[in-house]
Every structure is written in structure tokens, then in C-alpha cells.
């Protein structure tokens, strides 16, 4: 099954690089222009469950890496019964100075909270997302707090360290 997916991906998409580090892992590195097409292709091949969207800040390479983890329920079917679940990891890089990406909510509608989370923690704008508002955070941050150039210690010192204790006020 891995081989057929790998061969199909490599024959259809030219820029794709597929590695299989384990029996149950397939890693697909691809340029950002083809991500939506690859996701659509994989959804039709029964990788129809988006488990997670994650983001990595490669500050030295000046790039963000978006990671889409897909899986499916093939191992529950009759023909593939007894096999372990396969996780398919789609990775793509976007430049750091232009943190923008297309939304995948039209393919996987459960991507909505993941994209909102990445938007508030990494500041990546997902174009076409219908409700791109912060998910958890209430304060305003100059730099989104999960970026590597966000200095947490300085921020904590400035914001929480400057609040005086009540005993000192008397």
C-alpha cells in the first residue's frame, strides 16, 4: 500500500519527495503551491481524516514549516484488516517574511481550529478562512508568542514583573 501511494504521488506531482521511515509513516515533502492538490488527492485515496496541523519555526533558514498529519480508517475495512494505521505527514515550507497560506478548510472542515491556533501563535494568515480570530489568547502580543524571536523572559519581566505586590503599596 505504501508503495502504491508513493509511486502514484511521484508520478503525478513532480516536485514531491516521499520518504517512508517506518511501516506506518509516510512523509511527503512538497512545495506550497501543490499542497491543496496533494491533500485532495490523498483524501480521495481514503486518507480522509485530518488529525493535526502543526507549525515549526525554522528561524535560521527563515522559513515556517507547516505539517499536515493525515490518517484514515483503512485498517478497519475487510481487505486491510489486521494492518496498523498508517499516518501520512505532508510537510511544506513557507517564507518567514511572508507568512501566508491558503486555507484547507474547504477540503477538511475540521482544520478550522488548527488554523486559528497557528494564526494566533505563529501569525500565519490563512487566506479564505471564514473566522480567523484568536482561539485562546486574550492579550495582544507584538510578536506571536510561539515564534522563536519572541523573548518570553523579557515579556514576562515587562508585563507580569512590573505589577507591584499589594503589600508594597500601603
Amino acid at each position, binding site marked *: 500500500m505504501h508503495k502504491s501511494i508513493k509511486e502514484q504521488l511521484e508520478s503525478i506531482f513532480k516536485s514531491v519527495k516521499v520518504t517512508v521511515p517506518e511501516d506506518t509513516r509516510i512523509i511527503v515533502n512538497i512545495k506550497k503551491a501543490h499542497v491543496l492538490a496533494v491533500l485532495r488527492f490523498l483524501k480521495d485515496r481514503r486518507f480522509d481524516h485530518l488529525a493535526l496541523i502543526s507549525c515549526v519555526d525554522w528561524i535560521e533558514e527563515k522559513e515556517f514549516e507547516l505539517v499536515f498529519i493525515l490518517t484514515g480508517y483503512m485498517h478497519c475495512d475487510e481487505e486491510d484488516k489486521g494492518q496498523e494505521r498508517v499516518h501520512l505527514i505532508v510537510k511544506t515550507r513557507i517564507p518567514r517574511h511572508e507568512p501566508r497560506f491558503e486555507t484547507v478548510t474547504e477540503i477538511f472542515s475540521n482544520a478550522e481550529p488548527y488554523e486559528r491556533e497557528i494564526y494566533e501563535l505563529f501569525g500565519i494568515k490563512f487566506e479564505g478562512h471564514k473566522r480567523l480570530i484568536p482561539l*485562546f*489568547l*486574550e*492579550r495582544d*502580543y507584538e510578536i506571536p*508568542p510561539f515564534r522563536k524571536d*519572541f523573548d*518570553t*523572559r523579557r*515579556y*514576562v519581566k515587562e*508585563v*507580569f*514583573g*512590573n*505589577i*507591584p*505586590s*499589594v503589600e508594597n*503599596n*500601603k
Partner: protein
Amino acid sequence: MDRNQITKWFKEPAKMANKYSLHAIYFCTGCGIIEVPPVITARWDAERFGVIPVATPRQANLFLITGYVSVKTLKAIIRTYEQMYEPKYTVGFGSCPINGGMYWDSYNTIKHLDKYIPIDGWIAGCMPRPEAIFIAVTHLWTLIDKGMANAYVRYRENYEFYRRNQEMALGKLEWPPLYPIQNNVRVVENA
């Protein structure tokens, strides 16, 4: 009932009743709440000490803050605390409300809870064992006996300072002040 305490019951019945019926509000922050179900159920049975959990802040007089406090939770904590009737007692549980604990350099965790609401006592540790809750309760009894569990009085007296600190952490608060504020304190807007 301890017979030695019978004079106390005649002298200050309200205080004694308060002391032996600490009703703890169900309010879970962080991971410390995992120690509370064994405490209130049959294994350790907090009702031996008069501690039972109640559903609303109007019925409660003990506020256990169990674990780290994020900025969003602080808002809920203040609102809950202000709804409780006096006398009310607060206990910080675990090391995170004391000084941030392992979240001391987190961008979204409140470091010193006693800057925002008054605290009667702390239970140190990460995690404290359930027994520590009972030790805290007996300490709280002693404090109530001596009249030293006066955090709610401190809150009333220093309300403008607490309110100013709350606004520094949370920005403009949506609710009106609980007590009237004198104008000698500079209120920071949009901190």
C-alpha cells in the same frame, strides 16, 4: 465534638459554625484538581472535616485555587471570588499560584496570584498530596480561631490596589468595582 471547645461555641457560635462548615467551590484550574476527587470521596472523605464541595459561589466560603492560573482563568477567578459571601477564605494549592512554578517564564500564566486576589494560605508542592489539603484545613481552623484568616478584610481595605493590579493584567475590566474606589489611586488603562 471536642468538649474543650464548648466554651468557644457559646462565645462565638457563628465563627465556630463557619470554621466547621467550609464549603469549597467547585472551581478547577490547572492540574491540581486531580487531587480533589479522592479528597472529597470515600478514600479520604473531606466531610469528616466539614469540607464539602458546592456548586455555586453564593453557597461557598472556601476557594481552593488548584494549579496554574492563565490570564483567561484569572478573570473567572476574580468574578467567582467577588460573588462569594463573607467571610470567605482562599487557599492557593500547588506551587504554580505561588510564583508561577514551572510556568515561571510562560507568556500567558499569572505568576503571583496574591497580587490580584488576597490569599489566606498556601499549600506548597507539585503536586501536594491529598493529606496536605487536610493539614491546610486544620491550619485554616487555627487562623480562623485567632482571627488571622482575614484575606477578605484585606481585599475590602486595599480594593483599589487589587483592582489596579487586575486591570494591569487583564486590561479594562467589564464589571463595575465591588467596593467604591477613592480617586487617590491612578488606574492604569489598557496596560
